């Protein structure tokens, strides 16, 4: 297991390194001169040259890349072109916000979706199964801005109109807010994201359960005389949930950086909105930073998925490097 974990970690580092090259090159190829962006259209050649010198843009690309990478790893992420502030604390603040939302979403969606999927799988073809399938599919079809606005209408405006305790419609939070303080602001965006993930995870779980129920070892377990719930929990689920784990990990990556629409609807200060902001302003260093953080997030989530997968699946644990 140790060898396996180390190898996975090695793969992770390689992945991050490769994507860092891609991110670096893409921003290099983007049209527009960085110094002209910084100094504005009216800047003279001299000022531009000085700026280029200053930023080290005269050096060959590989050297620029290595310098960039070294700075980046050292926590020196440079200054944002548009806000003229240090990027590192800004991105970290947003990352923290995004992580909070992601974690809360997973806490709601995974038990719910897996539970529904298992319920549907165990009752294949029956009413429960059909209700779950139809229900989750009809929700997943709706775009996030529709469900988001609907939720705001219901749980914010309507509740307030009736004088009941309501949730905030605007989810912007103070930068210093703790998790508990920000919780009310998180609930509606988390539910919106849950509705997107729900059908996907539930259907995958359902088909995993159906697949495993056909296996001979389930018959063995049944014929041992075990109570049905033991058969389900101890035999079917550990095997049926394997594919779901990978999908949950990928969803986590999406939750961290892909919630652009949801963050906009709720005015939530997450990484997604920061990225859109950076693109709008052609803020190259900020774009690079957000992209790289996203990649690391994705890679880490996948690493965790691989390890959990191996933990549940002894065939992987004991065949690789053992």
């Amino acid at each position: 297991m140790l060898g396996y974990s180390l190898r996975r970690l090695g793969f992770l580092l390689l992945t991050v390194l490769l994507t860092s090259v891609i991110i670096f090159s893409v921003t290099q190829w983007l049209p527009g001169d960085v110094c002209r962006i910084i100094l504005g259209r009216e800047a003279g050649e001299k000022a531009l040259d000085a700026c280029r010198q200053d930023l080290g843009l005269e050096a060959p690309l590989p050297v620029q890349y290595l310098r960039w990478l070294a700075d980046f790893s050292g926590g020196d992420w440079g200054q944002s072109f548009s806000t003229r502030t240090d990027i590192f604390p800004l991105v970290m603040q947003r990352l923290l916000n995004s992580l909070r939302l992601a974690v809360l979403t997973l806490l709601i969606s995974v038990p719910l979706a897996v539970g529904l999927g298992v319920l549907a799988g165990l009752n294949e073809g029956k009413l429960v199964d059909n209700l779950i399938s139809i229900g989750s599919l009809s929700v997943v079809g709706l775009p996030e801005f529709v469900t988001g606005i609907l939720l705001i209408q219901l749980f914010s405006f309507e509740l307030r109109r009736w004088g009941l305790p309501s949730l905030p419609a605007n989810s912007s939070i103070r930068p210093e807010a703790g998790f508990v303080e920000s919780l009310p602001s998180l609930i509606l965006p988390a539910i919106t994201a849950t509705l997107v993930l729900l059908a996907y995870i539930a259907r995958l779980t359902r088909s995993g359960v159906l697949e495993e129920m056909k296996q001979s070892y389930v018959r063995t377990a049944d014929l041992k005389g075990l109570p049905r719930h033991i058969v389900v929990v101890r035999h079917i689920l550990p095997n049926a949930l394997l594919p779901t784990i990978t999908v949950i990990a990928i969803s986590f990556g999406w939750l961290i950086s892909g919630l652009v629409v949801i963050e906009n609807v709720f005015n939530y200060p997450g990484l997604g909105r920061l990225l859109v902001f950076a693109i709008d302003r052609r803020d190259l260093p900020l774009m690079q930073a957000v992209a790289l953080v996203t990649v690391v997030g994705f890679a880490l989530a996948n690493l965790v998925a691989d390890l959990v997968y191996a933990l549940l699946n002894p065939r992987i644990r004991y065949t690789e490097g053992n």
Partner: protein
Amino acid sequence: MINEKTAPALNIKDLCVAYQQEGEWWEAVHEVSLQIQPGEIYGLVGESGSGKTTLALAVLRYLGKNGMIRQGKIELSGVDLVQLQPAEMRKLWGHQMALIPQNPQSSLNPAMRVGDQIAEVYRHTQDMETGEARHKAVEMLREVNIPDPGRVTLSYPHQLSGGMQQRVLIAMALSSNPSLLILDEPTTNLDVTTQATILDLLRSLIEQRQTAALYITHNLAVVAQMCRRAGVLYAGRLVEEAFINELFARPLHPYTQGLLESMPRLGDHKDSVRLRAIEGRAPVFGDIPSGCVFRPRCPIANEICETNPPLSVLPEGRKVRCHRWEVSLNEAGRSHLPDGRSDRNTTEKHQLQPLLSLEGVSVHYPLKRSLREVVRREPKRAVRAVEGMDLKILSGQTLGLVGESGSGKSTLARATLGVVDKTAGTIELLGIQLPDKLSRRTLDTLRKVQSVFQNPEEALNPYLTVGEILQRPMMTLLGWSRQEAIGRVPDLLRAVRLPAMYAERLPTQLSGGEKQRVAIARASAAKPNLLICDEPVSALDVSVQASILNLLEDLQAEHGNSLLFISHDMAVVGFLADTIAVIYLGELVEIAETGDLFKSPYHPYTEALLSAIPGTKVESRRVAAPLVGEIPSPIEKPGGCPFHSRCPRLVGEICKRQPPPWQSQQGSSKRYLCHIPWEELQAQQGDIQGFEISRG
């Protein structure tokens, strides 16, 4: 020991089981009645689709949603299971009835330690504490002769061999001491040596515990060894039931006779015996013939057979469902060929040209090193699948290759075909060295070496018609035009005894045996010099197996091609091969012309293989020379003699240290790799008892 007077443990009466398919109900088991006494092993014999597994699942009330018991009773110790609710059945499972299934690997939970899987039974059905249940699990494993049971309880299923997995399942099934044990082909996927030990184990456990056992199998030899009585199932009907001795000595139903006649027995050879295959194919769902179900395939059927045959009960306690069993009794018997029928054998062997010769061929699969091994600079390891193999196949002759799974048989075939690279040695075809890589072999070489694989289900492209499948090799290997190739298809089909209209069919429309015929036709379409057959009949039913063996023999007689025939089944190899090579752990340990191979002395491994074969005749219980342990890993091969770690005739230190020499003697074509000299080994062994080496 078994008292006929006591009430039967299991009493099945007029059982009908149906399956729903596309909205219609089809009967898979029809009016079956049978009784099993406590302590008795009752054999239920049938081919695939005969309904034997359905019957087992019906008894367990585990038919699934689309299955239904239509009528009849299943009484277990007097309680009619058909009347019970699912919740009540769950209380009987694991208490009063248990199943030992066919595929041990897939029947164990891959994500759970085997100890926990056994302990679970005690914890949940007998309310035992975790610690005590664990302790009981170890005890159970010891009872099924698992060495070091404490360590095995901590293993996951994939870390155990097939034989060990099956022992675990046996332990699990017996942990609750059930009164009825259902065994569904429990040894079918195991090696013959493993099968022998598992069968011994099962018999003694069942005897000890006085369990009633329903033993389901297609293998008549296993039934002969294990059971006291047996029933023969055909198209869901029990067509015959008798005590074992009588069933084998005097089969009454034409189907039973056909099954027995179509099975090659050890010592049968193509030069003297023609296998009698059962014509036609078994009826499928929804296409059950009226009257006697066996009528379309029966050699003695007449008008009366168009009515339902009654179940005749004979005085000696046997039953047969046939109008004409008295007639069939007289017409039984296999066709013996007149002496010297074969022209091939009149040619002296030494005059024949070697077609294929392998010299010092080794195939190693390198292993990936773990991180730790790389860091510690440990040497690279490899799976040594084939090691220093010298073999020759003469033109027009058949070389049989036998050995357990993992012995390297298939790897050798693949190296010859050019699908795996050999590590050392040379392979020559008609005196010309073959390149390793398939891509570097000429079209003509590819044409000369063709192959037939084990599983016909996977060997044919499901999107091409049989005609298209057969045209391909003629167009690519012979360079014929499509028109020419189409013209030859009917000939090819005729050669494999299929009607010409089959050219239009898709593989899914064919039965398993028919698919294998198409695969053979495809392999012989480009007139190969060498046909490599890797277990071509082991996936097929016995009655179909015979016709395929006959076919391979006929094609060879006609075209004069050579055969490399790989099988784990000694009787099948003995029937078809002119020369037999026995391989163990990738090394040749014995080789002889077929007639000589069955005469002593035998290499101790060959002896073990032969003695592990369940006797086909009831009087011939097998001679005991049990093999200890399991086939070692080809990564850390034992030094000295490769077989020393399991050899029942181990001499001493010399076997562990020194590679053994070849032993041979004038007047015999046999040579074997062993430290024990010819006369000495012969004195220890004598000829193997109980097998009919020569017939008539």
